């Protein structure tokens, strides 16, 4: 049976891939363009990357994004892993409904999550700042971590833990010496994904960020709306490369073993 795709299929696929990647490649290439206004190529230059260092708003945004990202990742990875462990190891009534509700944040539009949290903070009288951003990001990233870790747990042989207990290891030792080594790639992949989601998020963050706590995406958005200059290309390229690296790492981890 001939399995090679037909010419028509290959053409469509090639076109789609070009469509998906060309804009970004173009974006990256022009970040090195030695010209402020023209889309003509004026020569290779790193000046827009140097410009990034001068822009305190970008640097501050990067700093905020990293702080928020690390905090949100840490919290959502821990809580998400615990949730996944609880779900996979115990059968209880209403488990399926619970899992469904757990996935609700994944299908809820960011705009809805964003404004509902804004309202909550207004009602509670909490002033917006880095803390509110972290809280929002954890609420959103938690479900992602659960999905990834659950998938990893499902592939794990449950008899391994039983074998360890019969060899004399109590619950905590078993968790430490058998469960965690098995689970580790999944937890790490979940953490990486949570970080990427947090780092890249704009919509939700725009509602819950305070005046002094603009994350990098918020700064970039402002630049896109107001003054377009090639330094946007430069910062976009950096964001893309960082994301691509982390995604590649996460893919390798999920495939490991």
């Amino acid at each position, binding site marked *: 049976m001939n399995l090679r795709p037909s010419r028509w299929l290959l053409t469509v696929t090639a076109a789609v891939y070009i469509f998906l990647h060309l804009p970004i490649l173009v974006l990256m290439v022009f970040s090195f363009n030695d010209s402020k206004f023209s889309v003509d190529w004026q020569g290779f230059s790193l000046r827009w990357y140097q410009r990034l260092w001068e822009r305190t708003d970008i640097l501050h945004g990067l700093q905020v994004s990293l702080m928020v990202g690390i905090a949100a990742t840490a919290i959502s990875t821990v809580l998400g892993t615990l949730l996944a462990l609880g779900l996979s190891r115990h059968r209880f009534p209403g488990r399926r409904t619970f899992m469904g509700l757990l996935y609700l944040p994944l299908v809820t539009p960011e705009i809805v999550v964003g404004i509902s949290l804004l309202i909550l903070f207004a009602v509670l009288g909490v002033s917006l700042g880095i803390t509110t951003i972290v809280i929002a990001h954890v609420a959103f990233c938690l479900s992602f971590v659960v999905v990834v870790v659950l998938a990893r747990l499902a592939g794990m*042989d449950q*008899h*391994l833990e*039983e*074998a*360890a*207990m*019969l*060899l*004399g*290891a*109590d*619950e905590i*030792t078993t968790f430490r*010496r*058998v469960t965690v*080594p*098995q689970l580790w790639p999944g937890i790490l992949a979940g953490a990486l994904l949570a970080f990427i989601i947090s780092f890249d998020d704009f919509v939700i963050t725009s509602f819950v960020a305070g005046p002094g706590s603009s994350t990098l995406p918020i700064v970039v958005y402002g630049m896109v709306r107001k003054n377009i200059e090639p330094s946007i290309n430069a910062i976009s390229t950096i964001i893309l490369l960082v994301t691509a690296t982390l995604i590649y790492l996460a893919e390798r981890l999920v495939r490991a*073993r």
Partner: protein
Amino acid sequence: MSAPAQQQPVVQFVGVSKSFGATRAVDNVSFEICRGEFFSLLGPSGCGKTTTLRLLAGLEQPDDSGGEVRLMGQPVNRRPPYERQLSMVFQNYALFPHLSVARNVAFGLEQRRIAGAQIQERVRRALAMVRLDPDVFGRRMPNQLSGGQRQRVALARALVLEQPILLLDEPLGAIDLQLRKEMQLELKALNKQLGITFVYVTHDQEEALTMSDRIAVMDRGRIAQLGTPAEIYENPRTAFVAGFIGQSNFFDGRVAQHWDGRWLLELRAGGALQVPHHPGLEQNATIRVAVRPEWMNLRRADSVPPGENVLAGTIRDIIYLGQTLHIIVAIPSIGDITVALRNEGQITRPLAWKRGESAIISWSIDDCQILEES
């Protein structure tokens, strides 16, 4: 007055039950296992044998109302697996994929905080005992081993701890036939050599008959019969046991008359058989009788020895099984009866019977197994 330690059973189940939701996987099961015994739990899938093993291991808890599990005379219902004096070999081996063979085997020893040099020594001995060269296999990872090798590592990991009881959950299931037969003999030899009590779960009745000192045949959560292989095979007590172990021909009838140590059984389908006396048989009771194919013989009309039951019929089919021949005889009103004869070599000494011929089946009256209500 307590029995001397020698004779006290190492495992006792006293009225143990285990339910999963509405289903009773283990239903009021009681038995005892003696020191050094090779004890098998045998039955079809879903009969509760694996659940029983897991209750013994502490991986499941009996129902609140459901009885007591005792090890060395001590009740251990609430004790976790790591506090019980037993080891287990799992069906799919459960080797730790992130640890080498040597570290897998050493795992339990490391838990006991034994000195490093001693651990190494004991690991080497355990691997040698299962015939794996420690220098070759010690550093390998589980995914580099074949199924048979993994199984040996799982065995070494369990044996190295020198626990008095070893549990095995269908360990030979995934291994091909030749190797399986070798391993059966090896396991039996280890049992005798080390004096460890083996509790073995299997659905393969031939395996259980080969290796066990005693077998508990389980059906739907209960023990149908507990006994030596000979008892189970030759004196099955219920229709289930008679059908699950080996093959049986079944006859239903009503007990009619009694004389001289024998009962006359009027078959429902017509005709009569004689059955030996059995305590509890009373007149007019309806019973079921089992007779194994290999206890039956084919005869010509004029050559039936006395003291045997006879049935007349026509040979419907002859099935070639290598070592034996199964002759299917159709008896009017009763149905098909299977007679098993030894194959003397069809090419050199062919059977004297052919398809379509009429023949007489006969068997000794004492070979009738009277079955209890299951």
